[in-house]
């Protein structure tokens, strides 16, 4: 396997919330996450809403500063970068946001939206119009779209523009934060195919965040499963779909309805009771134990760390110690 491009170690991001006067509580959105993303791969992150997957994606790109932990890019800690190097990192690492309606400036033309980044970074793109048109063609749009405004496009087309904007910086790494969750399935399919193809063409490394397991499986080679601020299991996407080790992963995978009536109705389901805990008031010990059917005494007192238990399989669960 190739070298890691991005390595995250014990990353934490807490957001303060005021309780009363000066007393503060913290939303522990990301609470001690470690993993590697290897060169050329698409690393999937799945989890339910509020599990911290979006915060994780944004923190890795330093769009928001982490509370604690380290982020390595090609072995260098980006938190120790000076201004110059940080600017270069920001060029190489791009993001495609979830909501295409709010991530494009409504007062800029498509040309301005796409050329803004390269201009700011002083990238030599030759003839700017030709450059933008060539990018638009790559994402399935046309030359006549160049001077239109975002409101003239459908959701799917807007997401294509957002992807072209990311590609304009000639990046190495792109975070895709639920790029198709606002789109209809028939449109989603074409965007996913396109991302896959562009990843090959531009030799991109990526992180694909989604709550949709089927989409993550289609897009990524390895998957990390998040639960309330922590990654509970990481595995090869095919292996993970064959067998889930962490009880939460198992519950999550058994809960997804499969678009095939015979398969989905005969599937054994594991319905966990209750709801995820609040990321402000976390239970002591493992954060899944209040819902876990296999909870043991140790789960109530000590939080399990992510451990490699097999080749390419990491689990944070006391059952496997």
């Amino acid at each position, binding site marked *: 396997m190739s070298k890691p491009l991005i390595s995250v170690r014990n990353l934490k991001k807490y957001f303060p919330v005021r309780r009363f006067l000066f007393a503060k509580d913290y939303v522990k959105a990301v609470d001690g996450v470690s993993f590697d993303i290897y060169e050329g791969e698409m690393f999937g992150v799945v989890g339910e809403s509020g599990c911290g997957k979006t915060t994780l994606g944004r923190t890795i790109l330093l769009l928001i500063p982490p509370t604690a932990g380290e982020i390595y890019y090609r072995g260098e800690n980006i938190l120790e970068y000076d201004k110059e190097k940080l600017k270069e990192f920001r060029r190489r690492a791009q993001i495609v946001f979830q909501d295409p309606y709010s991530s494009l400036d409504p007062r800029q033309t498509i040309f301005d939206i796409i050329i803004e980044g390269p201009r700011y970074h002083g990238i030599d793109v030759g003839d700017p119009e030709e450059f933008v048109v060539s990018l638009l063609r790559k994402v399935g749009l046309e030359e006549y779209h160049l001077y239109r405004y975002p409101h003239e496009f459908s959701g799917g087309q807007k997401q294509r523009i957002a992807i072209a904007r990311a590609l304009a910086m000639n990046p190495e790494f792109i975070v895709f934060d639920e790029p198709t969750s606002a789109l209809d*399935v*028939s449109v989603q399919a074409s965007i996913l195919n396109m991302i896959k193809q562009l990843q090959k063409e531009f030799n991109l490394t990526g992180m694909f965040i989604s709550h949709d397991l*089927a989409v993550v499986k289609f897009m990524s080679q390895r998957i990390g499963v998040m639960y309330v601020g922590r990654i509970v299991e990481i595995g090869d996407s095919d292996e993970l*779909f064959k067998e889930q080790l962490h009880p939460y992963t198992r*519950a999550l995978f*058994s809960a997804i*309805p*499969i*678009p095939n*009536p015979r398969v989905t109705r005969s599937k054994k389901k594991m319905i966990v009771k209750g709801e995820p805990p609040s990321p402000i008031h976390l239970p002591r010990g493992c954060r899944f134990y209040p819902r876990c059917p296999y909870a043991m005494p140790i789960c109530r007192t000590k939080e399990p760390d992510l451990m490699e238990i097999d080749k390419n399989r990491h689990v944070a669960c006391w059952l496997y110690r």
Partner: protein
Amino acid sequence: MSEPILRVEDLRVYFYTYAGVVKAVEGVSFEVYSGEVFGLIGETGCGKTVTSRALTRLIPDPGRIEGGRVLFRINSEWVDLLKLPDSELRKIRGSLISYIFQDPSSALDPLYTAGYQVAETIIAHNRVSWKEAWLKAIDALRSVLIPDPEARVKNYPHELSGGMKQRVVIGTSIVNEPKLLIADEPTTNVDVTIQAQIIDLLHQLKNLRRTSIMLITHNMGLIAEMADRVAVMYAGRIAEIANVYTLFEEPLHPYTQGLIRCVPDPTKEIKELYPIPGTVPDLINPPKGCRFWPRCSKAMDICKREVPPRVEVSKGHFVECWLYAGGGHE
């Protein structure tokens, strides 16, 4: 199979906007049988929610129901809900026919407690005291598996999580033991593990009380999981109606085929997805003839001129497509 409880014939709903007349629902017909889960699937803007709301005339201005019949069976008598006086219809809404709306946060009034809102529904349709209604409300919340319902009835909506709110909404909708429950995207705003709990709950409802459920969704997985029969809607019309197994295994309408192929199946090894080319048409000026022809790979001349008739290909399997109506041999 059991008897139909609802029969919708040639329903038409238009919205009169400044931009023009939006023909949101254009000649929709289907039946719902007692005790079944009838799925209505389609993408954003296809008219599935409008159809479901038109059944009890819940269409706000500038929308108007332009035609059709909605026959509902009450004690073996058929009543046309579109002709019923408002006062009569109000007796049916929330009792014999009830709704679970998509967004539980907006379906609940933030100024009243969860218990009040359930009890209010009981009071509106039954001669009971508030005290009795309150106790029944607690029972209803218990039946939708809300833990500690005695305490929860006193909570305001903002004190409840999304999944809990959706349970309160479901509780409200089943408290008067409806014959027909219309569930409009009941799990779209909740997480997968909570979705599994709600699916389980709806299954129990159907099995225990023999309630007919009309399930409206864009999620193919949910349809595969829950529905007995399915209608596929496209641009204000029904493209195909079939038993759920038939629909997934032998889809006939090119749109249904496309829909099934473009959804990733996590149990299969997929190299590439097959999107449906083009976009959903503008319903102010929909294409002439079949509304799907501009995106259809099998479009023929007749498709561009005339609306395809409904053909029953095999028993209970209806399709509105010229491929099966002898369109090829003109």
